[in-house]
Each structure stands twice: as C-alpha cells, then as structure tokens.
C-alpha cells in the first residue's frame, strides 16, 4: 500500500508554524496568566517549573537511548537482559522514571522492522528519548502509521523490501517501546562511544536505519 494514498493527500495544516506573530503573542500571554494564577493559588512554584524545563531541555534526550543501543550491540549478555526486561536493563545505565515506568525493547533484524507510534496521543519513552518530535504527535503520523506503515516510512526516506516483515507498535501510556536498530556493517572496530554517536532518535522510533557514518 506504499503509494496507494498518494493522490488523496491534502496539504497538511497541522504544523506549529501556521501561527502568526500576533497569535503567538496571545498564546504567550495566556500561558503567563495561567502560570501566575496557579502560582498565586499555591498549586505550583516557579522554581519547580524551572526545574522541569531544565530536566527536559538538558538532561533527557535520545543520547540516553543511544547509550542503551550501543551497549546492547557490544555486550551480548546485556542485549539479552534488555530484550527480556528492558526497564531493568535500562535502569542499569541509570535511566528510567516518568513516562518510562515500564519499557519494552523490540529488535530489528535483517527480516523484521519495528516502528513505534501512539495513535491515541503521544506516548513515547521519555527517559531514553526525551520529548517526542512534533511529527510524532501530529495527526499525519498518528493516523496513517497504523494502516500504511510502509507508505509512511517512504516519506522518511526508508523503502523496505516486500520480504521484510513490518511490525507497528501502537503504544499506550503504560508500556513504552524502544526499537533496537540493527548494528550497521563496518562498525566492528568502533568503541561503545563511537557506536552511540551513530544511533539517531529516528532509528530508535523505527523510522530510519542506523548508518555507519553519523
């Protein structure tokens, strides 16, 4: 069904950039008022809000996931533990917590390609990938990944052979999925750090493969 829906797709109005400067300003103001209200009422404190922003902007991101993947590539025993109990194995590297309380890792092979999505909202493994990208949360990906994963992958530049089995994981809040991509050829001599540097966020969502050049 790769190109089946091609002629029927209308232009996409679901991007953030639609907003005019005036609208953006109104939005900033609306949020400021809400924050002031909730601060005044004692529901939140500015310090707590600042801490949250700092954590998600600086501490959490796909570099964590890349470390997990690189470790699995070089350490067969770790790879086994990761596939058997991802939450626990990921915890070994120090990652876990909110929106990743129960994680599952699914492994790409020469014959199986996994893709993670959340059709109902935006569930995503925050501790290892950080916050999801905009496209992951917007209607085009959420709706079509369930019915036409191969067509969606083509839009990401990845055309899969018909012989490859595609597995879509429609995540829910309780269980968060991470793809263990295939280790690229020609990386036999790479160190764990060098391997981690190759691993992209997209490859851990399953919309890309890992290349031997970063």
């Amino acid at each position, binding site marked *: 069904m790769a190109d089946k829906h091609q002629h029927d797709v209308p232009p996409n109005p679901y991007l*953030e950039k639609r907003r005019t400067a005036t609208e953006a300003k109104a939005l900033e103001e609306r949020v400021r008022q809400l924050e002031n209200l*909730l601060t005044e*009422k004692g*529901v*939140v*404190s500015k310090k707590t809000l600042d801490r949250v922003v700092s954590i998600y902007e600086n501490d959490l991101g796909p570099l964590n996931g890349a470390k997990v993947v690189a470790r699995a590539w070089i350490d067969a025993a770790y790879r086994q533990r990761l596939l058997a109990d991802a939450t626990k194995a990921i915890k070994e590297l120090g990652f876990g917590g*909110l929106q990743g309380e129960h994680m599952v890792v699914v492994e790409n092979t020469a014959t199986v390609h996994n893709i993670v999505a959340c059709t109902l909202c935006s569930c995503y493994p925050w501790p290892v990938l950080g916050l999801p990208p905009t496209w992951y949360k917007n209607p085009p990906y959420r709706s079509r990944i369930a019915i036409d994963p191969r067509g969606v992958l083509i839009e990401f530049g990845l055309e899969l052979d018909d012989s490859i*089995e595609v597995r879509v994981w429609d995540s829910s809040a309780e269980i968060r999925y991470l793809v263990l991509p295939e280790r690229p050829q020609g990386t036999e001599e790479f160190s764990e750090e060098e391997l981690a540097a190759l691993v992209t966020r997209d490859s851990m969502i399953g919309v890309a493969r890992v290349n031997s050049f970063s």
Partner: protein
Amino acid sequence: MNNIHDMGGMTCFGPVEREENEPIFHGEWERRVLALTLATSVFFGPLDRRRHVLEQMNPLDYLSCSYYERWLVRIERLSKETGFVTDEAFTSRGAALFETVSGAPVDSDTMDSIIRQGNPSVRDTGRLEPCFAVGDRVRARNINPSGHTRLVRYVRGRVGVIHQIHGTHRFPDTTAHDKGENPQPLYSVRFDATELWGSSASIKDSLFIDLWEDYLEVENG
C-alpha cells in the same frame, strides 16, 4: 467516546512533515505548558482522567490546536473545574481539593523525584491471574463506551493473538472516571495487518497494541 483522538487508520491528514532542526520547544510558552502540566499532575488527579479532558475537545478545536495548545486547554479546563479561574478567591471545591492533596505546591526536589521515579501503573492487587496465555487467539470486544477507553476503534471486533503479558495494571476506563483502579492483566496483542485492513495490506505485516483483559474475549476456531 468515539472522538477524533482515536485517529488510527484515517488516511486524510496528508504527509508527515518534519520541521527543520526539530526544536523541542517552539517558544517559551511551550516550555511553561510542559512544566505546568507535570507540576500539576499530582494535583489534578490520575493521568487517565487528564487524558480524557483532552479527548473531550470537540474535533474542530482538537485539530486546530497544536500539541502544547491542547495541553494548555487541558490545564485551563482543569483549573476551571477546580474553581480557580471562575472566581477571585478559592471556591469550596478548590479548597477541598487542596485538603485532599497533601503538600501542594510540589517543590522542585519532589518534582525531580517524581520524574526520576515515575508513576507506575502496575499493581499487585486486583486480578493477578491472567485469563489468557501467550499464543491464545482473542477477539477485541466491540464496545463503544461513552467515557475514556484505550480500546481503539480500529481493533474492535478484530481477532488477534496474545503476544506478551505485561502484568496487572490499573484500568483506564474506570480510573479516568473515579470508579476505582480495577487492576487487571494487560496484554500485548498482535493483529495481522490483513485482519485490520483487509487483503490489500501486506501479509507480512502486523500491528501490536496493549489491551486490558476486559477488552478481550476468547476467539474459538
């Protein structure tokens, strides 16, 4: 409820568009909305209830809002329900909420610990013995509840196979509506793409989705 958030299988939203440089936030206000959402999460109650607030947006509003705008709408609605926005002073409902939630506001160290610990949905009470085993054929029930559910429309009535058992988790359909956590087994169920979408789908492909025991019935034959 069958609302627009349940959009799996729709083919009308156009191509996936990736932004240049993919900024995590598109403005200071998005940072604050994320932070406000996490910092009020304990105060405003269970995740399922908060999700349902988003799902109740009418489709026109849902689709015309960007992601963090919807989150903003959610905090506004929950604040309104609590009585913060409609009145100058606390309403009795807001005050009552304060009494039941200890330690508001959450301080930054507590927040840090919430982010590090998370809020697991797994439970050691409720239905602990799964009815189904890995490999069992099951049919997703065709139910159309008026409230919150995770049973997406595109699997209702379709036959799949139990792929994995995730243990016993709180049940969103009741948790969202203050009807108790009703913990029960959560399964990863595998559906053939052809079962979900018909013979034009690839026979190689499948879709896995996590479904609670109450969503499933035995499929014979």
